[in-house]
């Protein structure tokens, strides 16, 4: 019998924690729940439960999909740390995906503006086209003023700020990027730190 392909997906870039387990392209279990700045406390217990329920262990995972932001800096680092360690320890294939793409995948609309609030009228945003369940970028991940980003879009679209990712849609898309060297994987912050900006001045 052919061995089944087991994939784990993780994203913690927003206030929602997302974990999903896929076996041969079928989502067999998933968690999408709002947290109170406590992803760091809950992610491993939730992951353990997800695996226990499916009667498998971390070592059985063949591939991992990691949401690398943009989003909350502290938040995204939790998921990337966990995903990076799982990939490293088990020497398995790792794929990174935009956390904005994961949010967009929850929508069924044709034109989707995926948005994660970044305060002071700014947001992490990306704009997607969706035809027959296939999601693709129109405008890449960016951090800018919400209004000015929206002004450049002259068609009807839906704004999506949260929603349980449709991971099957993601794995069929071109939005996954293979990570060649696990040690080099870092979140996509889209912005240097305030200290670095001040130093450049």
């Amino acid at each position, binding site marked *: 019998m052919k061995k089944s392909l087991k994939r784990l997906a993780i994203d913690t870039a927003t206030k929602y924690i997302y974990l999903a387990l896929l076996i041969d392209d079928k989502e067999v279990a998933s968690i999408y729940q709002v947290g109170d700045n*406590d992803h*760091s*406390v*809950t*992610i*491993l*217990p939730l*992951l*353990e439960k997800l695996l226990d329920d499916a009667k498998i*262990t*971390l*070592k059985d995972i063949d591939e991992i999909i990691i949401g690398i932001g943009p989003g909350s*800096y*502290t938040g995204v*680092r*939790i998921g*990337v*740390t*966990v995903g*990076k*360690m*799982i990939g*490293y*320890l*088990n020497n398995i294939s790792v794929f990174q995906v935009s956390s904005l793409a994961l949010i967009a995948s929850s929508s069924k609309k044709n034109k989707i503006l995926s948005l994660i609030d970044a305060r002071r009228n700014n947001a992490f945003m990306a704009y997607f086209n969706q035809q027959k369940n296939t999601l693709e970028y129109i405008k890449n991940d960016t951090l800018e003023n919400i209004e000015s980003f929206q002004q450049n879009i002259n068609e009807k679209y839906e704004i999506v700020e949260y929603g349980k990712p449709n991971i099957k849609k993601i794995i069929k898309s071109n939005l996954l990027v293979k990570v060649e060297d*696990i*040690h*080099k994987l*870092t*979140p996509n*912050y889209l912005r240097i*730190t*305030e*200290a*670095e900006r001040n*130093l450049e001045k």
Partner: protein
Amino acid sequence: MNVLGVETSCDETSVSVVRDGNVVLANEVLSQIDIHKAYGGVVPEIASREHIKGITYVFDQAIKNANLNYEDIDLIAVTKGPGLIGSLLIGINAAKVISLNYNIPIIGVHHISGHIYANYIEQGMEFPLLALVVSGGHTELILMKEHFSFIKLGETQDDAVGEAYDKIARVLGLGYPGGPVVDRLAGSGVDNLNFPRPMIQSGDFNFSFSGLKSHVINTHHNMKQRNIAINIDDFCASFQEAVTDVLVEKTIQAKNKFKVKQVIVAGGVAANSGLRKKMKEKITDIPVFFPKMKFCTDNAAMIGAAGYFQYKKYGKADDLYINGYSRLDLE
């Protein structure tokens, strides 16, 4: 028992393998000090970004240099605080993944207990003992009557001693981190500025360094205004003598009161040569121990050593719900 130690509380990403609390099989430290120098101190967000960059690499180096596999690890000990929260969480979550992946028990360790147990690695411990913990975040005297029992006798009421060093160094234009530079220059200076020795006879075991710090800064400012030539070496020597007089005198008072069998000095400032010299000169009736230089600054070997004794004392591990704490009491 092979303990995997993990330390990411500030600006060092460190992973160790320590056997039975004192045999260091590996102690990998990825230091960010050159990155933070440009900012005159540790920038928390940059520290977190650097930790996540280096985390798997440091684990890999540690396990390879220890010549072991993860299956050979019996316990994972990870710093849970105090420290920079964003930095702590990276080490904690990485450690938890190893725990779940290989079904290895995990415990959260207090950073200061690590600094104290850095002394166990080479010298062992004899109780009761007195520990003087001096670093950028801590200045405290701790009495230990047995392994992994900490009674805080006193602590700084304001600045930590390492913090005072960094601020003085900044005022003197000596850069960051200031401690080692001030220490070096003090070696060729003379204590001729009569700086105060705060709280030296306060009768308790508390410290205060902010008044001394202001005094030093004001003196420097006044001399500059009046165009009096400033000898930086003498400034450093006068400051260092004042600080070490207080630290050593308080340590002697506590040592006598509690009739301890040894004194140990722990934390980054334990690397200070003026403090080392004065302690050894002034305390001759019982041994005074300092950790090796590489175990003075933040490192995971000390966490592996402390974790071993914490586990032995309490006999049980934590679970996957371990959290990080920016502030955390030792007792």
